[in-house]
């Protein structure tokens, strides 16, 4: 029972952290790495720092405002 509660709490905390990061334009990094390894084994996935930098450029470097007034 307790273990299940702890598990559930962890899951919620993880979702919460993921929400906070996506709010500022950062998708889940681990998922990105896993995806790249599986679907594009010939490519080396970006490091976490590169990933953050690439996402910043993508979020602010285009003609879509990305947020409301």
């Amino acid at each position, binding site marked *: 029972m307790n273990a299940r509660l702890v598990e559930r709490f962890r899951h919620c905390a993880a979702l919460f952290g993921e929400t906070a990061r996506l709010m*500022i334009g950062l998708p889940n990094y681990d998922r990105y790495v896993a995806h790249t390894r599986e679907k594009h084994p010939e490519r080396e996935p970006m490091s976490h720092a590169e990933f953050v930098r690439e996402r910043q450029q993508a979020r602010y470097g285009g003609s*879509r405002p990305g*947020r409301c*007034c």
Partner: protein
Amino acid sequence: MNGLARQLIFIAVAVLGAFALGVVALRRDEAINALWIVVAALSLYTIAYRYYSLFLARKVAGLDRWRVTPAVANDDGLDYVPTHRHVLFGHHFAAIAGAGPLVGPVLAAQLGYLPGVLWLIVGVVFAGAVQDFLVLFISTRRNGRSIGELVRMEMGDTAGVITLFGTFMIMIIILSVLALIVVKALAHSAWGLFTVAATIPIAVLMGLYLRYLRPGRVGEVSIAGFVLLMLSIWGGGLVSQSPTLAPMFTFEATQIAWMLIGYGFVAAVLPVWLLLAPRDYLSTFLKIGTIALLAIAILFVAPQLKMPALTQFVDGSGPVWKGSLFPFLFITIACGAISGFHALICSGTTPKLIASETDIRYIGYGAMLAESFVGIMALVAASVIEPGVYFAMNSPAAVVGSDVASVAQAVSSWGFTITPEQLETTAKDIGETTVLGRAGGAPTLAVGMAQILHGFVPAFSNMGFWYHFAILFEALFILTAVDAGTRAGRFMLQDLLGRFVPMFRDTSSLPANLVATAGCVACWGWFLYAGVTDPFGGINTLWPMFGISNQMLAGIALMLATVVLIRMKRERYALVPALPALWLLVCTGSAGLIKLFSRDPAIGFIAQARRYQAAIAEGSVLAPAKTAEQMQQIVFNGYINAALTALFLAVMLSVLVYSLRVARQALKLPQRSDHEVLQAVGQAARSAS
């Protein structure tokens, strides 16, 4: 739980909502508690979500749980990522919530709280959330294309270019009105200016830390930034009390306008990691945190509303903005009930993150309901402060005078009794020298929020801290919007100019970048400066223009939705978007025509320009202008505003013509003629699973 019990619960919620709304609408002789409004709103949202959005999802759009979304088909872990619905809800809500739903209801409170509450609830259920839902649906079925591209796909090239141009004009008006709100809040306020200015070095420090010291650690750097922000509020309090430092941070409105214009240009050409991105992190988290805190505080404090349900200003004679309830209420409360700007977000990043089509109901319709609730909270915050203080803060000096004695007398004569001492005490409580001439919504909202939040944690804080916390909260995300908007506007301008001068197409070219950025800053800077120096106060001119442009874009989005439904051969549901589109056309059209042709110089742009022109010809100077130059400026502003309003109307009408034409052609065809993109990968995946 069985179906019957479920239905009974929803019936109970509906009854509760109807009862609460009855209390809000009908109890006139006594002050009501803000919780009645909260309960009415939340129950009606629940019913609307449970029944109307289900109808939208199943019947109108026909969401298909098995259809593969762009996120699944193009999954790259970066732009296209199938995302957990709750996570995506947070992302989408953070993108649509902004200054609009906070400021509009505050300005609308001059009519009393009732008209605002009713429109926020009815508008979101039948118009705003419908628009967000349908645009998200249409974009998701077209690989996450933007609203301009969607219009081009479904209504033709010309309509697409017109929409793109309209979007650019809206950006300009939004940026200038947002910047004007900041200027109004920071003029003559050493505390406010210090705190807001401190966010620039804080953001740069965060940017450098994130780039060189601990690359990519956004969590820890955001927490550090938040601590520094709170310190800057505290530091601002010390600055405002220091006789040597306070004057260094006290500026006139025009000086702050120039600083903002310079800042906007520099911030838009600096690399994004240095200033824009870290500031965005701070403003996003502060925004969401403060909205949550305010919701909890309203529930705990349960404040009484002091503003009457209706004021005498429903006749159109109000001091904050001129014009009668119809159509100007629906222009003033722009976001919160319906916002055309959301069409940009719903056709931006969100459709590329939808994991399953059925999530569109929760994300598109649900997040917009939450946004409307933010508007309700802003209205509550504006209604819990003394109405006399509300009108003293928001009335232009031209109407009420500029010292506490004359303002108190003028406001009291309208029936909102207030003494000069009360106005002085309010200013002192919030750590400012004056509350007069603080139009624009943000300072009023900050006073209301300070009252509620101080009532929530009285032991630990003072009003001055919370007031400047609220100012910082608004200024921070407004400035982020100015940075990001200028950047986005620059790309839009390059895209538009590139159609005529190919050199501008190259977005990596530095000269093209600088010219386009300068062009964009000059556009909003011009309106900002005109607003700041406007003897009438600026907000009462710019906010209606913002409302008209924003509702115009919403009208375009809903017309697109109608056309798409007809092309899908779902014309029996076309009225679902067509009726709100018609309502917007009527509101925006009549507001625009009134602004253009009203003979009342207080309302009509042209009438006002003519009146001052006539006075110039006679060589006299009319109040509130004090010099011949100001007279010239009023005339010039009047004609510019008139031209712009006419342009907005022309954009809207031409899109209407295109949609009618396309809809007529589509009705004649026996088969579907829309341009949905089928995800090829999806078909394979479906048969495999």
